[in-house]
């Protein structure tokens, strides 16, 4: 095993990017990006298509050279020590980076051998990871016969063979159905629990909230916000609580009741009847309970409630005052409603 230990000091940065610039012709894919990822954390890079997320990951995995700027990953200089760096990173791209003609097992074994594991160790590791990613049954089948979710899991397994200290996940759940997406999230959480540092790019606020502690929002190659997920959510307005009254005619009365109650932290929030639903922006679970409790105490009937996270659109709107450049088609489906049981 050729794993090289992470920088030994605690709380150090596993990734430090300074002033990263990459042009493609006229397009500035990266326009002076700074980024810090603390060791052992999941750091989300949130942005729309074309924001520069994939370019950033490709620079940090030594696949492309930036025009200017510096980057240190796991104590290695990305530009001058690419060979050393490649020993300690794992990459799972947006497109499955496995050989589709080979079986799942053959893929993992090959990568084990390329990482200088002995034959025995490569076999052991392949079996172990297939088991862990629930692919044992499909181990001998060609990867091209796998479903989207299975392929992505195989991809993650492939990235884990070398036990990397820094793992890049470039939009790991784009194009996956919700169930498969949850499986991938569970795996990422496990990896982090085992001490890996993860740099995750995503278009989904929900994904960032699920996995990341710290968040960097980028747009058109520039960092437009940086901070904890909670801080960002507070800035954006957290979740929206949607309430469907049993009697639609009571919508207005309910809205007035909530706004007049002056619940702590809800000051200034608007409850507006819309499509037979009451939308209440909330910042915490306590507020959710308080709003529902208040409506119950006043004798209003509720048939359904749910919360939804702000979409990338709303995040961008709150931060920059404008929508992301090419959000029109791809980001519409961002607001994934979550049913809440009370």
């Amino acid at each position, binding site marked *: 095993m050729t794993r090289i230990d992470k920088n030994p000091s605690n709380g150090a940065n596993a990734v430090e990017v300074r002033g990263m610039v990459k042009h493609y012709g006229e397009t500035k894919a990266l326009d002076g990006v700074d980024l810090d990822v603390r060791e052992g954390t999941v750091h989300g890079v949130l942005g729309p298509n074309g924001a520069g997320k994939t370019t950033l990951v490709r620079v940090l995995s030594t696949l492309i050279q930036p025009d200017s700027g510096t980057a240190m990953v796991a104590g290695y200089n990305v530009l001058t020590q690419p060979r050393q760096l490649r020993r300690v990173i794992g990459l799972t791209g947006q497109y499955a980076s496995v050989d589709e003609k080979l079986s799942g097992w053959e893929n993992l074994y090959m990568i084990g051998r*390329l990482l200088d594991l002995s034959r025995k160790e490569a076999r052991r590791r392949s079996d172990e990871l297939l088991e862990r990613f629930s692919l044992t049954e499909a181990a001998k089948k060609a990867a091209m016969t796998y479903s989207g979710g299975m392929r992505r899991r195989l991809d993650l397994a492939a990235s884990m063979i070398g036990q990397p200290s820094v793992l890049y996940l470039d939009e790991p759940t784009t194009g996956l159905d919700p169930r498969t997406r949850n499986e991938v999230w569970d795996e990422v959480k496990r990896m982090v629990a085992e001490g890996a540092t993860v740099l995750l790019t995503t278009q989904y606020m929900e994904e960032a909230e699920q996995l990341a502690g710290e968040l960097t929002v980028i747009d058109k190659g520039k960092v437009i916000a940086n901070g904890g997920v909670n801080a960002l959510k507070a800035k954006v307005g957290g979740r929206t609580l949607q309430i469907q009254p049993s009697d639609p005619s009571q919508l207005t009365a309910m809205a007035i009741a909530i706004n007049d109650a002056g619940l702590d932290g809800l000051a200034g929030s608007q409850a507006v009847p819309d499509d037979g639903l009451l939308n209440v922006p909330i910042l915490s679970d306590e507020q959710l309970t308080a709003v529902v409790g208040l409506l119950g105490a006043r004798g209003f009937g509720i048939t359904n409630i749910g919360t939804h996270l702000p979409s990338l659109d709303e995040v961008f709107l709150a931060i*920059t005052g404008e929508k992301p450049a090419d959000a029109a088609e791809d980001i519409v489906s961002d607001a994934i409603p979550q049913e809440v049981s009370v």
Partner: protein
Amino acid sequence: MSTATITAPPKAPAPQTKPVSEEGRIGLRGNLRHIGALARRNTLQIKADPESMFDVLLMPIIFILLFTYVFGGAIAGKGNQGDYVNYLVPGMMAMMGMNISMAVGTGVNDDFKKGVMDRFRSMPIARSSVLIAKIVVEIGRMMVATSILLIMGFILGMSIQTSVLGLLAAVGLSLVFGASLMWIFILLGLTMKTAQAVQGMAMLVMMPLQFGSSIFAPPTSMPGWLQSFTDYNPLSNLADAARGLMMGGPVAHSVFLTLGWAVAITVLTAPLAIRKFRDKT
């Protein structure tokens, strides 16, 4: 656009770089292990897609039958097809090498369309090992094709006039030359946008080289300007060398020219191909 920063991005000084040491170097043993693992991959790809062996399995059979019975009578005289086989087989060994090595170009082009190349390139392996593994497997494919060609030749009445050693030398020479051609096709595969374009371009190069040569007919009946082309056509040199080694006659000049071509092509295109491969994104 207004920039709203929740917390200012930290401006801590970058930590000092670890000393550039030898730990990133890949030794010879490591390189051989990587090439082995990647060659295994390319072999497994063939197993998963047996149709990709059609060129190797069928081309020698179809071509030798076609040329022997369609052109053989015309060139060597009706009823003398047997003599023509002795002339044709060494020439076809030169042709097969070129036809089969073309596949390496489309293969490399295809790999870049898939994410798997990103994984290889982000791993601690020499980037040339991906290419060398491809060449190793492709040489294996050439050996299969050459064996089938020789078996067909023997069935059609070919007889080696020299010795087994001469035959082995002819096979070895055509493999060396075929391997050098692969670098050209790899370069094409890395430069062209699609596998189809690679194939089209390769055909354009191959047809004049193959037919404007001594592979199928002695150039003595060709016009003078074409003869001067065939004289320096590496495929003619290889065909003449293989013919001499298998059927007797002078070989030194043509063997020397063939090896010269192989070295020149490799020295010119291999570094270009490896650099192109390294820089391709």
